């Protein structure tokens, strides 16, 4: 690389050396495993029995017939439907409140974003203590109101919402920050015009603010759908998938099939189903967002 031509933009093979280290890693540790995973999904391959050849769609057929897997798909979609609207509505509410030049918004922002930096292990440890049926913080708070303590974590109805609450508490900072960035890009002239028209708070919100950040709303919703489809640690550590499989998510199914039962082909097939569902959900939302805009 001693000699360099006159132009900065001149095309040279040697310049590819800058990207070579990353491209090798990308190829070896992402593209190859991705292709290997797609191939594995069509193979009868488990760690103990070894490779027993291609089986076509049999892994996918088995997944369809698997009551537990169907349950994990249902749980995961339920979880996404619980958390995504909560992230959008609460994130937008916080951003609107903090954006309105409230004096202590710096401290408040620090508080609402702070829990995002903790690991899933710490978050679940804290919340399992909060949810303790007899001595938890929740039981204490209910006790102050004269209500009996409840054991959310072992309830078939409440366990998944309890995990959803933990998740919203954990990472509300991301949607809040994205909405704040969106709000700050709205030109102030729009609000000045509204003020001249004597538009009320509600009309300003629905007439100016929300239409101006429509794109941010779509982006936040898509990001949250993709993130929440990946539910794993919270469920594994709070409920372990129970009670009666009502909180077991798809990623936990992949984890158990692949790393406990060592059925690699079967687990790889489940991964492909998850990947496909995530892509479909994200594309559907982008499509819906664009149609609404037209």
């Amino acid at each position, binding site marked *: 690389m001693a000699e360099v031509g006159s132009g900065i933009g001149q095309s040279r093979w040697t310049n590819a050396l*800058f990207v070579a280290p990353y491209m090798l890693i990308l190829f070896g540790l992402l593209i190859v495993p991705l292709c290997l995973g797609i191939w594995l999904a069509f193979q009868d391959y488990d760690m103990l029995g070894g490779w027993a050849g291609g089986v076509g769609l049999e892994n996918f057929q088995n997944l369809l017939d698997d009551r537990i897997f169907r349950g994990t798909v249902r749980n995961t979609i339920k979880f996404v439907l619980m958390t995504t609207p909560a992230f959008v509505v609460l994130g937008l509410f916080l951003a609107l409140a903090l954006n309105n030049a*409230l004096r202590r918004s710096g401290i408040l922002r620090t508080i609402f974003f702070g829990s995002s930096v903790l690991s899933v292990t710490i978050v679940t440890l804290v919340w399992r203590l909060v949810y303790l049926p007899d001595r938890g913080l929740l039981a204490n708070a209910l006790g102050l109101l004269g209500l009996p303590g409840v054991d959310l974590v072992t309830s078939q109805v409440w366990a998944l919402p309890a995990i959803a609450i933990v998740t919203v508490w954990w990472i509300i900072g991301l949607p809040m920050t994205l909405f704040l960035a969106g709000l700050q890009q709205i030109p102030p002239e729009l609000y000045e015009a509204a003020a001249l028209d004597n538009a009320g708070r509600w009309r300003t919100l629905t007439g100016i603010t929300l239409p101006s950040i429509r794109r941010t709303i779509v982006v936040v919703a898509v990001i949250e759908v993709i993130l929440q489809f990946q539910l794993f640690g919270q469920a594994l550590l709070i409920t372990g998938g129970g009670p009666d499989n009502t909180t077991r998510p798809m990623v936990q199914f992949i984890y158990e099939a692949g790393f406990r039962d060592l059925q690699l082909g079967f687990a790889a097939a489940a991964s492909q189903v998850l990947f496909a569902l995530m892509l479909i959900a994200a594309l559907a939302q982008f499509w819906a967002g664009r149609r609404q805009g037209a």
Partner: protein
Amino acid sequence: MRTWQRGRSLGDRLLLAAVVALAVVWLAPIIWVVGLSFKPNEVLMHSTGGILTPPFTLKNYVDILAASSVFGWMLNSTIVAFGQTILTLLIASLAGYGFARTNFPGRNALFVLVLAALAVPEQAIIVPLHTMFAAADLHNTYTALIVPRLAFPFGVLLMTQYFRAIPPEIEEAALLDRASRLKVFFRIVLPLSIPAQATLGIYTFLHAWNDYFWPLVSATKPAMYTLTVGLASMQTNFAQTEGIGFLMAQAVFAGLPVLILYLFFQRHIVSAVAGGPLK
């Protein structure tokens, strides 16, 4: 916005009150856990009510220090997080500069490939990745804990964007002096990119420190656990909650370094985390 600064309307006051109340709810679990971590387990057996009433004790923290494995896990997490951060900064900066500022055959096609890689979630590759590392007999090593995350393209895209914004005239002058591309990169461009390095570095460190799924399946020997995996392994016998003060002290002990980091580098962390999924 002048009206906001003069007398606040009733609506604004209500909004402020609602947000402050919500902030209290947000903080409550953490304050409760920190407070009770200083109380003796015998007291917590009966009541977890008042966090401000004595007796207080440091025994829960002393017990953590006595459980020698926690320090080993913290060391593992530190090695993995620093290793991943330094390698990511180096590799992503080189690649970002290559894509942003140099030209070579096939550049645009490769860049599209990098962009497409953003769509691949960890779960889609974790089973085959685990098989590959098992075949290479690399599990339970720092290499296995550090290397796989280097493949995710966020850092490269962030650095590409940053280098594109640096005026090219700065380099052109140096290149006219017959300095090599690599020399220009290390002497001139890299020092200019320190703000982006800080953002990417903190982001990478935080992700590595908090990572759960891959370390869970790769590091199966307790001596190779990271702090995140190790703490999770100690939570399993939760049903017999005799030592909840000890559990709380663990949460505080493990969370404190990250929270301190957050308070010092809040701006970088927020911009990195919020910028991450958008790029």
